[in-house]
């Protein structure tokens, strides 16, 4: 139960950051593919770098263990990504 409360709060924080970065708008998402507004990339890469430092730091201190890392199966990841990109550029989600 406590886990679900945590999930709800983390979700709120996740949705809040997406909205404030403007990623809930069609033009923000599609313009990253037109290379005219790179906010999506800046947002994603900042989140990646911050989380990498945090996660590897905490693991180094022995405070966390990593959950199951998403599986790498090259053909599936790439084909899935190609299909995903079409949908993302069409809808702006």
């Amino acid at each position, binding site marked *: 139960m406590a886990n679900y409360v945590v999930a709800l709060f983390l*979700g709120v*924080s996740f*949705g809040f950051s997406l909205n404030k970065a403007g990623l809930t708008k069609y033009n923000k998402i599609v313009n990253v593919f037109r290379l005219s507004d790179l906010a999506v990339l800046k947002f994603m890469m900042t989140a*990646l770098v911050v989380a990498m430092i*945090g996660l590897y730091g905490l693991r180094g201190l022995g405070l966390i*263990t990593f959950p199951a890392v998403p599986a790498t199966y090259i053909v599936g990841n790439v084909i899935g990504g190609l299909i995903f990109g079409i949908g993302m550029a069409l809808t702006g989600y």
Partner: protein
Amino acid sequence: MKWLWNQIKKEEWSPYAAGILLGVTGVLAVFLSNKLLGASGAFENLAGMIGKGLHIAAFDNTYFNYVMPPGITWGVVLLVGVFFGGMIAAFTSRTWKLRLNSDEQWKRVFGKKIWVRWVLAFLGAIVLEYGAGIAGGCTSGLAISGGMLLAPAAFLFIAAMFASGIATALIVYRRRY
């Protein structure tokens, strides 16, 4: 305090500031629940619940039985939170409003008809979710959550997503690209 509240009320943050918030959220998800943030998986959990509830034979397969078991999972609760988080953010910046389609750029490219937006959004979202299902995650579940654990899958996915996204945008926008 006043400074903080003024920042919260701002409609649009620097993407770097919002990215830091998401990064911290991602770390907290692992620290507090040993889970990764994600969105597309939750839709599969819910779709599985509906399919199994209606006893549709097509849902009785390995994918829905073992890979993405149906149910109100941690990810589904997270997704509910995302909905309210986005809403709270819109309330704080006083931009919350029910809209059918308000995007000026969309209207310039596809015209003013609202149903075109809705139909394309519906079909495009199916394509998007299907791709996410094959790849093993979406922008959040695979690209960001996998990337922060340095999973090779995440970087393959990001590269593929941008390749086809740019190609699609080129086709949609043609000379206006």
